[in-house]
């Protein structure tokens, strides 16, 4: 399941971000009649055809696996948090329909009508993300139901479950992260082209557009991530202790940069600590108390090594690509042209994979940080899994399929790029 999710999410975020870039590029072409914008839109639409299909089938895998791997989780939760999945189903319907019109409609629709079909793709892509993350937010902040004395579900209110306490912080953070990843991945592709000496208008515009989206989104990701962390400090103290690697409950808690938490020694090794900063960030008060892992029973603690390192990876890479974006735009505004220094271009090339890694690390934080619970405080992961035999075999089969799909997708995208160059 985790493998499926980690695989699907890369395609899913491009499914959210790319249509917006397509609409912007094609819209700029309609306004300016500059053919470079049209060429960009057409190239991206071909690449998107493959990415969307792989995202769609891997998403189907997830909807099945929810039941196949977590039957008891679904028997318990389906009635409460199924609603956003149904809403997501409709958003996905609209995305698939208008994408069909968009991909195959270049020669059948007028230019303006064609551009218009891209807008529902971008909107429903964003809505898909919003709905599906509502369901995950509910796993963090289960609400909208009561358990009676016999442990049966009563007073189920799926609307309240969808708009649970985690939704206002988790949802925006995921949505802007999707734009971060798309923006930096696109910029990375065109920076690589510029490095190889392809200095045409198309590469410059591709880079500008990608960096435009990436720069705006990374700022928003910082803001939404900050409010997410503050929410977790209040609502999920064990997760917060794990992601900041705090062992003993303290006032004036420090921020530990990097380092490896050691359960045996109850402290973080190889780290740099900034005193009181954590209390200040979490509660705007340098003397605020931060609960340590030690205040939770051993069976209720997430794994601090995994969660802390994932958290630092996310924040570190996010900050790094934010700095690259800031430098890029400063140089653009200063010099009034696209900077072509090799060092900066290399940094831009690396920022694409870095953005993907930051997003994956973010999912590690939220998923492993919630352990040992699948529904926080209500249902343990170990109680929810399937008892079906041969799980290892299923896992191996899907793992191999995903590797095959990833390799073929990469090969085809490279082939498309080569053909684009040959045609240009």
């Amino acid at each position, binding site marked *: 399941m985790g493998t499926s999710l980690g695989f699907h999410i890369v395609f899913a975020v491009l499914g959210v971000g790319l249509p917006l870039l397509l609409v912007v590029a094609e819209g700029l072409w309609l306004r300016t009649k500059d053919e470079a914008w049209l060429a960009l839109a057409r190239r991206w639409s071909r690449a998107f055809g493959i990415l969307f299909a792989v995202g769609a089938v891997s998403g189907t895998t997830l909807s099945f696996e929810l*039941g196949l791997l977590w039957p008891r989780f679904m028997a318990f939760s389906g009635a409460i948090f199924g609603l956003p999945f149904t809403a997501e189903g409709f958003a996905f319907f609209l995305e698939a329909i208008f994408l069909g019109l968009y991909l195959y409609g270049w020669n059948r629709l007028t230019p303006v009508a064609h551009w218009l079909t891209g807008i529902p793709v971008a909107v429903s892509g964003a809505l898909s993300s919003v709905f599906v993350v509502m369901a995950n937010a509910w796993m963090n902040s289960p609400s909208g139901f009561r358990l009676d004395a016999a442990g049966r579900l009563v007073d189920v209110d799926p609307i309240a479950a969808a708009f649970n306490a985690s939704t206002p912080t988790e949802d925006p953070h995921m949505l802007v992260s999707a734009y971060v990843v798309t923006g930096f991945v696109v910029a990375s592709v065109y920076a690589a082209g510029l490095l190889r000496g392809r200095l045409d208008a198309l590469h410059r515009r591709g880079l500008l557009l990608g960096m435009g989206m990436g720069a705006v989104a990374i700022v928003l990701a910082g803001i939404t991530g900050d409010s997410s962390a503050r929410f977790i400090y209040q609502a999920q103290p064990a997760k917060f202790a794990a992601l900041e690697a705090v062992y003993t409950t303290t006032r004036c808690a420090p921020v530990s940069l990097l380092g490896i938490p050691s359960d045996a020694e109850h402290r973080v090794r190889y780290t740099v600590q900034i005193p009181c900063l954590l209390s200040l960030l979490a509660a705007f008060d340098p003397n605020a108390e931060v609960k340590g892992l030690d205040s939770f029973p051993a069976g209720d603690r997430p794994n601090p090594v995994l969660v802390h390192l994932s958290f630092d990876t996310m924040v570190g890479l996010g900050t790094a690509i934010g700095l690259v974006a800031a430098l890029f735009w400063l140089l653009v505004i200063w010099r009034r042209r696209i900077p072509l220094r090799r060092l900066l271009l290399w940094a831009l090339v690396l920022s694409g994979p870095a953005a993907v890694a930051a997003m994956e690390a973010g999912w590690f934080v939220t998923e492993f940080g919630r352990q040992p619970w699948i529904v926080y405080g209500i249902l343990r992961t170990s109680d929810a899994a399937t008892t079906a035999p041969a799980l290892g075999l299923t896992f191996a089969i899907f793992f191999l399929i995903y590797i095959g799909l990833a390799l073929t997708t990469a090969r085809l995208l490279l082939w498309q790029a080569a053909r684009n160059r040959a045609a240009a």
Partner: protein
Amino acid sequence: MSQAEIVAAVLWLALTAYAVLAGADFGGGVWDLLATGPRATEQRRAVAEAMGPVWEANHVWLIFLIVGMFTAFPSAFATLALALYVPFTIGLVGIVLRGAAFAFRAHGREAVGGASMWGVAFGAASVIAPLAMATGIAAVTSGHPDRWDTPFAFLLGLFAVAICAYLAATYLTVETEGTPLEADFRRRALLAGVVSGVLALACLALSPIGAPYLWRALAGRGLPLLVLALLNGPIALGAVWFSRPRVARVAVVAQVVFVLWAWALGQWPYLIPPDVTIQAAAAPAGTLTAWLGVTAVGAALLLPSLWLLFRVFKARNPAAIL
């Protein structure tokens, strides 16, 4: 009808839509695999052109069905997921490979090639997916959801593949009207029609032993629709024989609808015979109300969009719906 029964009926409509729309896309894969003769490449291209703009939208009916099932009937969904783990997982592998293989070929044909690994994967997965899913459905109708490994279940799986191929061939006959391909797909429709008819009768004959609950369902409340299906079958085949592709298309779609609803009406009010009823498996009332609300809003957006999609791509042959 109770609220739970309305939800079940809506989900059954979605299953019907999935069967007649996406079923034909699987059938397209079958004809891609079996493309023969001097026009084999053109046959494959006709399949790809017909499926291209619509297959992803058709596929979403399945996702809608799955999430609707786990929202509105969570305990039944969990029971089925445990009992049908193997056939559903195999079906899922088929669905993943089919979709990915189609996209890989459609957006990079020269890179992958017609007879390449992905080409074969597209056809083979198009057979495996409906076969495995129908095997699971057969197990449910038999009253033993975990007994998907019976001769009856396998026979019903084969019937599902054949009817998918039948749907696809009749749709493609309309899509290729006036070209040499029309005759190719007419022959294929005849073949698939006869094969699916024989398999359907075999399933029916075997059901008193293989799936007694299904037999009772069909012989009981499902009987009127079963009789309609038995009368309609020869009409559909006759329409193909006498080269009336549009009539044939309507008749074959009707055939699928009759069969699915004969089963549905017959086993009403049971979701999983012999003991799980629609009412007993239903989620609490709050969930059902909210689900119906979301579905009403979603349908108001979905149906005009679907109309637009088919209008733009199937306008040459109005109401062609592969």
